[in-house]
């Protein structure tokens, strides 16, 4: 076989495997969308019907009335955007300090940061809850937002790896020109780290958007619920409102899918491990 046909064969095999795997990954999603358009009586037919007949667009309207959709959406958007903003401001700053500035205790503290990544959230969950309770923050979105402004170890780690890969010459040149540390960071290195900042922002955005345990713990008042908590309200003692629940799930998922589809290339560029040691 000549190399060209060989390559073609390998790629075809890869496609076959990828398609099979895709099938496994996409089926539940397709079912989610399909159920969101079915009347309740059609949800459990066997064998399953993939195409709703008729398309019940009404589910979407009903779902928005069944739970206070726009209130929950509003809450989710605020928590997600503000916490993402917090992460994007704080983490690159800290990561830059770990990667490019020299200071006493830097390596020790970086090691501590890595160790913190390994602390299960549940260990700190109870005291944190008590602290936030003392501060009167339980029942408000603050516990879900404020910590983001003080750095997240995993993101700091990812960003540090990225900054390590950027050349020092730029920094030196700017220094000779008399630029201050903050200006060097803000005008030269931060713009270069855009893919990594985007990756971190997207991680936070997705995590916050679908977060369940955080809102479950801290949002005690129904008017402050997020969509992921709202979804649970479709499951009642009387049974589950499948169509409506899936309608809200679809509305929740679609925006991030579109976001991911367009940003994925930069997203993957932003994650680098070449500097791990």
């Amino acid at each position, binding site marked *: 076989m000549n190399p060209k046909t060989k390559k073609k064969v390998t*790629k075809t095999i*890869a*496609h076959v*495997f990828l398609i099979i*795997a895709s099938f*496994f*990954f996409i*089926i*539940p999603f397709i079912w*989610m969308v399909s159920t969101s358009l079915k009347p309740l009586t059609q949800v*459990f037919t*066997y064998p*399953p019907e993939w195409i709703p007949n008729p398309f019940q667009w009404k589910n979407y309207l009903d779902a928005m009335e069944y739970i206070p959709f726009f209130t929950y959406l509003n809450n989710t958007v605020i928590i997600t955007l503000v916490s993402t903003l917090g992460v994007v401001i704080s983490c690159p700053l*800290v990561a*830059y*300090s770990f990667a490019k*500035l*020299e*200071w006493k205790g*830097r390596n020790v*503290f970086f090691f*501590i*940061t890595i160790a*913190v*990544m*390994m*602390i*299960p*959230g*549940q*260990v*700190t969950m*109870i*005291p944190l*809850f008590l*602290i936030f309770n003392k501060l009167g923050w339980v029942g408000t979105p603050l516990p879900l937002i404020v910590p983001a402004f*003080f*750095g997240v170890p995993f993101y*700091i780690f990812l960003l540090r790896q990225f900054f390590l890969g950027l050349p020092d010459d730029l920094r030196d040149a700017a220094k000779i020109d008399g630029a201050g540390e903050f200006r060097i960071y803000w005008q030269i290195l931060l713009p270069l780290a855009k893919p990594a900042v985007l990756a971190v922002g997207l991680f936070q955005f997705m995590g916050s958007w*679908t977060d*369940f*345990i955080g809102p479950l713990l801290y949002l005690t008042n129904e008017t402050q619920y997020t969509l*992921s908590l709202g*979804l*649970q309200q479709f*499951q009642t003692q009387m049974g589950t409102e499948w169509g409506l*629940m*899936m309608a809200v*799930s679809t509305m*929740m*998922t679609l925006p*991030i*899918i579109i976001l*991911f589809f367009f940003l*994925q*290339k930069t997203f*993957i560029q932003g*994650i680098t*491990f070449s500097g*791990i040691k």
Partner: protein
Amino acid sequence: MAELSKATNTRPVNEVRKKKSFIKSNIHGWLFASPWIIGFLAFFAFPLIASIYFSFTTYSILKPGDFVGVQNYKELMQDDLFWKSIYNTIYFTIFYVPLSIIFGVALAMMLNMKVKGMAIYRTIFFLPTLVPHVALAVLWMWLLNPGFGLINGMLEIIGIQGPNWLGSETWSKPSLVLMSLWGIGQAVIIYLAGLGDIPNELYEAAEVDGANWWQKTRNVTIPLLTPVIFFNLVMGAIGAFQQFTLPYTMTQGQGTPANSLTFYVMYLYDNAFKYFQMGYASAMAWILFIIIMSLTAVIFITSNRWVHYQGK
């Protein structure tokens, strides 16, 4: 003469300047890192220490509680559900983590072949990570339904009588492993990034030596991917030990059937926020911490043998 004095004069000036810039950069370093230093102290260090203390008390939100020494730990040793939850959690971790690495690496390698439609494939594999967990749980309850679920329907076509999945004590945990594997998209993305970091010259060199696909995978890709595998192994094991949302939403916090889906953190959560036994739950949290730390230590110690870093 004049030149000599000039030369001797500059040295101290240089040193002073060096010292000054050292202090300056020190200050800048601390300043840039300060949000995280505060965050670390407030959201990690302090709660960590507080939780040790709580674990020795009968603290609850309602009552201040008393210091009881190791009473909580003693009681836990006699708590059957505690042991059951440990068993469930270890079972899940042992099956889930290795499988997630094998499938994750395999998918990432296929995606890395620069096939057409990469963007679409990547989005598809990432899809499950984007679906809210509550919906995910409900979706899988339907797929795995013994009566009208899709999976048993497909098994029937090839003549296999499917099990009762989530309704059966034996199959509930394997079901959960399957469901969780569906969410490996994030790990795949990280592997993909790792694959992108492998220099192309290495493959070219291997090709010149006449290496076939399997030899290249075994001798170039896998060894150079080990740091990322290592990272995902540590994070995956930690994550598996903290399994919560999926079984919690699926069983509405009950861990049914017969507590076969009561995972460690679910039981911890119940103790803390359902029964308000914060002291007891803190003791559980610390036991979890010690388990995870020992596990991580073991992975770290063995990593010298199998993790290869580039440029070393």
